[in-house]
């Protein structure tokens, strides 16, 4: 059953002889938002997406039962997802010399790999080099928003003014008050579900109705409240009451939310195509070209300004040029850095917008891995309840280094968690024995477990960076990224605390701890890479100003996560979109005044 009855707008023909008002590179959260804001201001925009356009609903099949699928959701033979051990034992490029037909990042190894096999990039075509890194990429219209985890959180002045608070790193060139109206706009335009908590370090959104909690989660919430900590229903970039958008349905609490790598075939969960790009096309101001991999921002030799973008058609491998008065880069944190570094010219010998030498640097993200699993004894043998069909379970916001000062580390972390009955009883893997007793035990324990894992702030450090590999190129002949990146002692200390604090919180709630995971997952695992073209007030130590505008090239903007000054510990997508909205409003004003 499909609840969506509208097809996307008629696509306009791409006219490469024309000079567009703006070119947007990338169609994910950032690029989609840029397209939305600029077209609604009447600007004529060409959107270039490196990936293909596919029938996404046919991929996601959100309500398909495992037994309706020939391999119970697994990808066909010959598809391989890189495993944790491979990331750590081998060095990138991970697919080099692989006998498999297709190699994907670890996300392709989750249950339901068949549903992402046309969404994730094939690592064979997209090599990278350097230090170990689990780089997850999706090349298609909408990018990773097609499969994102949907946790939609705001940052606060604990994040924007982190240096003022604890002395580390740099403050952002904006404060919460500057971005708050744009968070509100994003909330209202796209829809977000959650429960108000009035926390200064995790500001509330303009919420639609929240997801419900399980009995186990209510128990933990009550206990945490006595510790002055919070468990709140997963704040999800999902419209639960509906939005004015004919391409999206509200959430009916159905489907595969909890058991696959994201994706929602009625688009209650935000994705860039239905949330931003199709409505932008309906203005008549947006032209889309997919299969178009930008590899150089072109420069006017007289003015040094951006004059357009050179791109390779990923199907026919031919190179084309598109012209525009303004160029907006939104290719994702790492791909945007790559594009800037690739765009070398007489005026910009180190890459466009890189007079500071900071492009690719201050690379940061979230560290994850440590977590805790508990057994809620009174739930053993409880009759099955409907605990599934929601975008996530719960979130425990940061509680470290707010009023207190931890001896081992600065900044903080939050926990994402879940509990209750799922489609598959995961505890079966750890239930010993066989026979009637085994079967009964699996049944009785299926809904009794609760688990949570930390997401911690990785400090932005100049020493963590990417540059271009001098030799290795991708399948289209474009130089690959080379990683120089590793976690520091601050992250390791923070991770020790995550495991200990998680255990303490479960124990305090009377939940029997059955597993404590202390292992740190490979760099990149959180898929929250940030910071490679940071904003700032000083052109010597930052790439962009507070409107994500290049200090060096006034008609060049970089509106994705690369602009973030610090990672915070909150998931970045909502901030990426709020910032892009703010910057693109400014951009449109300046454009109309003839200042670009």
């Amino acid at each position: 059953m499909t609840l969506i009855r509208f097809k996307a707008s008629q696509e306009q023909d791409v006219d490469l002889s024309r000079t567009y008002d703006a070119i947007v590179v990338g169609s994910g959260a950032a690029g989609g938002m840029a397209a939305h804001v600029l077209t609604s201001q009447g600007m004529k925009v060409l959107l270039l997406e490196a990936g293909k356009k596919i029938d996404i609903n046919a991929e996601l099949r959100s309500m398909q039962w495992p037994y309706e699928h020939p391999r119970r959701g697994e990808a066909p033979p010959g598809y391989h997802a890189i495993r944790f051990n491979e990331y750590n034992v081998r060095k990138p490029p991970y697919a080099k010399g692989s006998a498999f037909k297709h190699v994907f990042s670890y996300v392709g190894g989750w249950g339901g790999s068949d549903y992402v096999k046309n969404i994730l990039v094939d690592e064979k075509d997209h090599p990278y080099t350097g230090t170990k890194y689990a780089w997850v990429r999706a090349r298609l219209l909408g990018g990773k928003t097609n499969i994102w985890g949907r946790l939609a959180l705001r940052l606060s002045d604990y994040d924007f003014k982190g240096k003022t608070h604890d002395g580390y790193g740099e403050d952002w060139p904006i404060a919460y008050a500057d971005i708050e109206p744009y968070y509100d706009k994003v909330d209202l335009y796209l829809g977000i579900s959650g429960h108000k908590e009035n926390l200064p370090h995790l500001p509330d959104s303009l919420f639609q109705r929240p997801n419900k909690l399980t009995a186990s989660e209510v128990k933990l919430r009550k206990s945490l409240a006595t510790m002055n900590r919070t468990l709140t229903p997963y704040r999800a970039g999902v419209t639960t009451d509906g939005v004015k958008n004919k391409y999206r349905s509200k959430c009916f609490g159905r489907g595969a939310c909890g058991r696959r790598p994201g994706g929602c075939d009625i688009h209650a969960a935000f994705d860039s195509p239905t949330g931003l790009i199709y409505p932008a096309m309906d203005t008549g101001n947006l032209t889309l070209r997919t299969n178009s991999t930008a590899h150089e921002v072109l420069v006017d030799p007289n003015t040094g300004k951006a004059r357009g973008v050179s791109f390779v058609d990923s199907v026919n491998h031919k190179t084309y040029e598109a012209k525009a008065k303004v160029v907006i880069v939104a290719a994702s944190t790492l791909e945007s850095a790559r594009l800037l570094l690739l765009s070398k010219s007489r005026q910009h010998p180190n890459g466009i917008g890189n007079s500071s030498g900071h492009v690719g640097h201050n690379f940061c993200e979230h560290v994850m891995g440590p977590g805790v699993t508990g057994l809620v004894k009174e739930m053993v043998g409880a009759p099955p309840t409907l605990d599934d069909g929601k975008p996530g379970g719960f979130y425990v916001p940061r509680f470290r280094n707010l009023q207190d000062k931890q001896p081992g580390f600065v900044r903080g972390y939050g926990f994402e968690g879940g509990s209750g009955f799922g489609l598959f009883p995961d505890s079966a893997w750890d239930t010993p024995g066989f026979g009637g007793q085994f079967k009964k035990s699996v049944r009785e324990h299926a809904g009794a477990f609760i688990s949570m894992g930390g997401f911690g702030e990785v400090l932005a450090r100049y020493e963590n960076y990417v540059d271009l590999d001098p030799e290795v190129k991708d399948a289209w002949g474009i130089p690959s990224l080379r990683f120089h990146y590793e976690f520091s002692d601050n992250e390791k200390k923070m991770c020790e605390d995550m495991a200990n604090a998680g255990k303490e919180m479960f124990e305090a709630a009377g939940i029997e701890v059955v597993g404590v995971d202390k292992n740190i997952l490979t760099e990149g695992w959180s898929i929250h890479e940030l910071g490679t073209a940071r904003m700032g007030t000083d052109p010597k130590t930052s790439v962009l100003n507070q409107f994500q505008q290049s200090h060096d090239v006034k008609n060049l903007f970089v509106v994705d996560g690369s602009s973030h000054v610090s990672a915070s510990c909150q998931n970045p997508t909502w901030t990426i979109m709020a910032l892009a909205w703010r910057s693109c409003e400014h951009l449109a004003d300046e454009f109309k005044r003839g200042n670009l």
Partner: protein
Amino acid sequence: MNISRRTMIQATAAAMSLPALAKATSPSPKPQFFTPAEFALVDEMSDMIIPTDQQSAGARAAGVALYIDGRLAEAFEKDQPERWRAGIKAVEALSNEMHGKAFMASTPEQRLALLTRIAAAESDPKSDAEKFFREIKSGTIRAYYTSKIGIHDDQQYKGNVIQPGDYAGYDAT
């Protein structure tokens, strides 16, 4: 957006016609990878791991062995099917050693004794037969709990349904 009654009826009709359709198009339940003897052993052993009980039918009724056979027949990494074949041989050798006959020729009590013996080392399997227990238990868990019987009859899974009104669960109060 409301789900129209018409849509609901269509969906129900489609769901009801599914089993008939599946029956008409599914290949005959003949193993593609296992020999008939191997198949019989895997079928029996999977059903001993997850047997029929008062709540639900077991692994045999859920078609666990046939599902495993299908995956092994098309496996890209050839060491996986080879491991299964070697594991079955090891079980047969152990059966001969313990009872002087093949696994399927043994009595139910003898089969149980063998399974109990190779399951005892589950947390740290050493011999090929012990390793095979882990292999077939994993395969049985994966296939059974993704089957219709496993999901609906045994687990009585309540999700993957449309919730047009309030969501199930508790408020954060």
